[in-house]
Every structure is written in structure tokens, then in C-alpha cells.
């Protein structure tokens, strides 16, 4: 018991590999499998054919049966390893299957039909990472369009959020004015009220403004986040007032002070808010689902969900489109993971 606590509590500093270190590595290794395994399984599965996808028990790699052009047949025929009665194994191509019997031909002698019991044949397979599912999927899943909508929403909403929130945070942090405390209190009070709580009335407002099926209806309502304002305000409070006073003496306008003194000094906090905003907007689902009903306006998440609803059983296509959807954010994370994790860790979103 005490050794468990020792390993749970000890901080860094000892060098030799202790039993507790081994447990730590074991835990980490297991976590990698549990956290990353499912994603890897999805990616591997997305290359499987529709026949391979429904196969049980599932196999790790995307196998595909080999086909062969045989003289006298228009379509390529699937190849099988067949165990003949004398025990020898030959490679035959199947013409058709009738009940428990497969009608096969020898590719070198396509005239003669050989009848084989289906238990005596094994498909000839090889591992193929084919993009067929992706090609077929984008015919009904308008990936390019959804991606465009998602990027437009994420980028404009993040820029708007940064500008609008930093302006408000600047006012709340660096000015004394009537109503400041009231505004701040309302923001804290609504900090945890999500859009889902006011779903019906916001939809009414959007309808009256005429933003149904308009990306603006997705972008604008969430742009004034109390979380963002409070995060930026806390950071701006640490910027010394003397800098502002000095700039004023030099004749700088308030806008210059905001844009050329405060903003450059608030970069770390702005970066964290940008990361959060991108995460919120890219993954947002409920609000776009309510505002957007025409499929050409769908974001990736709404599109993917309706795609899985339409094609309930066509797993090979759903898997491929899921991979396409998780690809952009994965690439971004691969490049920026250090900045993202340390950024969030230092601010902790309080």
C-alpha cells in the first residue's frame, strides 16, 4: 500500500528504474492502446471492402480478394485456393456459386467447369489499401462543400470572437465606467448557460433576422462568449496601467492603445482563446443542426451525422467519411500539439 502511494506522490528526481516506474510505463502503454487504438482501428477499417467490413470476426488489415481476367468471361473472376479430392491445392477462378457448390474454372483451361464444395475453397487474398471507399463516399457525402462551410465558420467565428471579446475585455479591465460591474456580473452569471438552454428563443431570433440556412446564423450568436471576455480580462489586468498612461501622453488615441499596446501584450491569452474557439466551432453540432436544414449549408459534423443516418448499414462508406472528417484537426494537432497542450495547461480555462 505504501509503495503505491509512494509512486503516486513522488515527484521527479530519482534515477534508477523503480517498480513504480514500470507501473507508470505500463499504465502509459495501456493508455496509448486504449486512446489511440480505436482511431487506428477506424483508419484501418476504412480501407476495407463492403464485403470485408461485414465479415465476422473482423480482421486487422484490409484484405481484398484477388480477381483474374479469364478468357470467355466479361467480368474478372474471384480467385480461390481449392483443395481437390486427391489432397492437392490448385488456384481456380469461380464462375458462379449455386447453393453449397461453386462452379470453378482453371484459368489456363477456361473451357472446363469444375464443381467444388464451398468448404473446400479458400479465397486468395492480399492486403490492399484502396481509396475506393473514399472515392465512392464523396459522391453522396459532399466533403469539399462541408469542409468549406466548416472552415468558413471556424475561421470567421474565431477572428470575430477574438476581436469582439478583446475589445470588451479591454474596456472591462482598463476603464472605470458606470455599468461596468453590472456588465461583468451578467457575464459571470451567464458563464455556464449554454446555447442549448435557450435553443427555442434563439431560433426565433435567428428566424426573424433571416439567418436560417445562413452560416452567419451559426457564426454570430456564439461570438460574444463570456468565457473569452473573462479569460482575456484577467490577463489584461496584469498589464501595467503606466503603459497606457504613457501612450496617452504621447497623444495616442484609445484605439491605438488597444490595437498597438494591449493586443500585442495579450498574445498568450489570445492564443489560448483562439485554440478554444477553433475547438468549439469545429466540433460544434447542436447549434448548426438547428440553424442549418439545407444540406449544402451543412458543416462537417452535421453532414457526417446525417450521412450516417441515411446510410445506416453502409459502414465502409461511413468509416471512410469519418476518417476524412477527423483528418484536418489531426493534421493541425500533429503540428501544433506542444503549443496547444501547454497553452491550455498554463491558462487552465478558469
Amino acid at each position, binding site marked *: 500500500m505504501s509503495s503505491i502511494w509512494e509512486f503516486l506522490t*513522488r515527484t521527479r528526481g530519482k534515477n534508477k528504474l523503480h517498480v513504480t516506474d514500470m507501473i507508470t510505463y505500463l499504465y502509459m502503454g495501456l493508455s496509448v492502446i486504449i486512446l489511440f487504438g480505436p482511431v487506428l*482501428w477506424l483508419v484501418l477499417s476504412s480501407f476495407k471492402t463492403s464485403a470485408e467490413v461485414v465479415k465476422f470476426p473482423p480482421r486487422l488489415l484490409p484484405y481484398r480478394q484477388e480477381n483474374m481476367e479469364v478468357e470467355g468471361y466479361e467480368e474478372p473472376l474471384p480467385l480461390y485456393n481449392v483443395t481437390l479430392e486427391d489432397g492437392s491445392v490448385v488456384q481456380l477462378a469461380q464462375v458462379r456459386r449455386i447453393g453449397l457448390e461453386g462452379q470453378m474454372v482453371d484459368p489456363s483451361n477456361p473451357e472446363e467447369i469444375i464443381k467444388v464444395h464451398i468448404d473446400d475453397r479458400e479465397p486468395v487474398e492480399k492486403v490492399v489499401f484502396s481509396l475506393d471507399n473514399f472515392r465512392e463516399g464523396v459522391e453522396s457525402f459532399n466533403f469539399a462543400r462541408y469542409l468549406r462551410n466548416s472552415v468558413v465558420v471556424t475561421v470567421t467565428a474565431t477572428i470575430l470572437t477574438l*476581436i469582439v471579446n478583446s475589445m470588451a475585455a479591454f474596456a472591462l479591465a482598463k476603464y472605470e465606467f458606470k455599468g461596468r460591474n453590472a456588465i461583468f456580473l451578467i457575464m459571470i452569471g451567464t458563464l455556464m448557460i449554454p446555447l442549448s438552454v*435557450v435553443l*427555442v428563443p434563439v431560433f426565433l431570433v435567428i428566424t426573424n433576422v433571416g439567418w436560417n440556412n445562413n452560416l452567419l446564423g451559426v457564426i454570430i450568436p456564439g461570438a*460574444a462568449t463570456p468565457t473569452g471576455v473573462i479569460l482575456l480580462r484577467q490577463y489584461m489586468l496584469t498589464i501595467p496601467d503606466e503603459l497606457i498612461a504613457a501612450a496617452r501622453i504621447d497623444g495616442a488615441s484609445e484605439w491605438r492603445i488597444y490595437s498597438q499596446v494591449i493586443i500585442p501584450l495579450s498574445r498568450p491569452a489570445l492564443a489560448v482563446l483562439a485554440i478554444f474557439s477553433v475547438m468549439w466551432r469545429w466540433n460544434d453540432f447542436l447549434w448548426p443542426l438547428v440553424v442549418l436544414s439545407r444540406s449544402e449549408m451543412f458543416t462537417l459534423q452535421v453532414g457526417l451525422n446525417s450521412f450516417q443516418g441515411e446510410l445506416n448499414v453502409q459502414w465502409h462508406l461511413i468509416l471512410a467519411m469519418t476518417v476524412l472528417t477527423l483528418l484536418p*484537426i489531426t493534421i493541425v*494537432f500533429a503540428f501544433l500539439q*506542444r503549443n496547444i*497542450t501547454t497553452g491550455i495547461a498554463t491558462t487552465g480555462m478558469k
Partner: protein
Amino acid sequence: MTTHSQKNVWRSVGSFFNNGLSSLSNFTIDSMDVVFGALQRVVGLRGMPYIFVLPNLLIFGIFIVFPMLLNFGYAFTSGIEFYPDQRPWTGTTNFEQLLDCTNYFDPNTCREDIFWRAVFNTATYVIFQVGIMVVISLITALLLNRKIRGRGFFRSIFFYPVLLSPIVVALIWKWILQENGLLNGIITGFGYDKIPFLVDATWARFWVIIISVWAFMGFYTLILLAGLQAIPSDLYEAADIDGANAWQAFYGITLPLLMPSLIVVLMLSLIRAVQIFDLVFAFTGGGPGTATLYLVQYIYGKGFSSPSKQFGLAASASLLMAGVLVVLTLVQLLFRKEEKA
């Protein structure tokens, strides 16, 4: 030679973009300065803070505060009309309908039984999900705080699912847990029968909890890790010299100093758990039956997807949920005040 000239090419491309960007942003700042300078001459220095908060307040007022007030209008009126002026005032009937139960612990005796099922589902989900997630996040953070190789890599691995959208997470797990999925393949490989993970009510509830822990824990692990790293290491050295054992060090130093971060994690995860929606919507759709129907989906269903739209019920249910969230927020603020005092 080539690398050198290539470097120069890249540098000039880079500086071209940098110059372009900075002159663009300078241009924007300058032109905005004309607008804001004019405004400042009109309203004066004392008026400027109002100008700065205005855009935020406009959006906030129109899309958050005003709808919140409107929500009361919906909650106290009935009918299927969408526009508030066409809806007849019915007082508290919606709330009465929601809260009409002979026995509050048995949804079957309630007039709006689905609402109560959603309430109970949400409550059990919140308790188990938050409990499990906070414990696992804490253990993970403690282990990540040790001196191990590849810490940055492991930290990223834990955080990666947080970035995945709930829809993607739901589909990944639906694929693994479906009848002919990977997990059933492993189970039958060991000689057991297939388990209908998504068809059985208890299993479906279980997996919703596990998957949401899988998807969200990385975020809370990061916050706790930051809290742990803020604890000065000389405290542990001092405790070591004083002969404290590891358990005493954990109980006497780590736990009390980590408490503020733990409370943040607890409250944030509570508040988020109450609002669970998209993950489950794509994963089970609320089923089987109403086994994984949670509050937000009830609200969404009443307002947007059921054939007879009952905006009044949706609004009153959302007001009740908002009440719970406000209480949770206040509790959190109280805790923080105490921490600071």
C-alpha cells in the same frame, strides 16, 4: 550552395508575406483609427469604454440575454405556434405538466414520463461519468507528473481525443461496439458469446459513460497536471527531511495544494455532463428505447424534431435545467471565494 540560395529564397518569400501581412494589419489599424478617432472626438475619453464593449454587448444581448427572457415567454404559454404573440398565456401549466408525478421516483407515474426518464438518466450519467473521470484524470496527472521518458508524447495522446468531434467519437465507438464489431470479435475469440452492447439498455448506458470519459478526460488531466506542476518541489524535500512517508506527503502537500484545480475540474465536468448531447445523439440516438435519453435531447426533441412541436414544454424544461446550472455555478463561485479568503 543550393541549400544556401534556397534558404534565401524562402527567407524572401517569408519576408514578403510578413511585410504583406504587417502592412495589411497596419492599414486596417490605421483605417479603423480614423473611425474610432472620430468616435472619440464625439463621445470623449469617458465614452470610449462603452464603444469598446458595444459589439460584444450587442451580440450578447440579442443572442443570449434577450432569448433568455423570451424563454420565460415560451415557458408560460402553450400551443404549437412558434411566434410568441400567437401563443395563449397558460401560466404555469407547462411546469405543472412536467412536474406532475404521483411518485417522483417512478417515471411511470408521471404525466410527462419521458421528461422524468431523461432526468434520471442524466442524474445517473452525471454521477458516474464525473466520478470516474475525475479519479482517472487525477491518477493520470499524478503519473504524468513523474519523471518519465516521452512525457510530452503521452500528454498529447491523452489530449488527442478531446480534439475529435463528438460525432466522430460516437462513430468510432459505434463501429467497435456494434454486433459484429471488434470488441465482440475479441470476446468470441476467447470463447464467449457476443454481447449486444448497443441493444441492451444497461450496456448502452455503461458505454455512454465510458466513451465520454475516453473523449473528455484529457482536458481535465491537463488542468490537474498544471496544478501539480505549480506545487514547489522543495515542499516535498522538506517533508522528506522531516521523515514524512509518501502517503503523508500526498495527503499533507499534494492534495491540499491541488484542491483549487480539483474543484475547477469537478465543477466544469459537472456542468458539462449535465449538458451531454451530441455524443449520445450520434452514438445511440437516445436508445434503446429511452435508455440513454438525456435532458438536452429531450429539449431538442420537444422543440425541433417531434412532429407536434411543444415549445412550451421545451422552454420550461430548459429553464429547470438552467436553474440547476446556475446553482452549480454559484456553488463553484462560493468555493473559489473560500479558497481566496
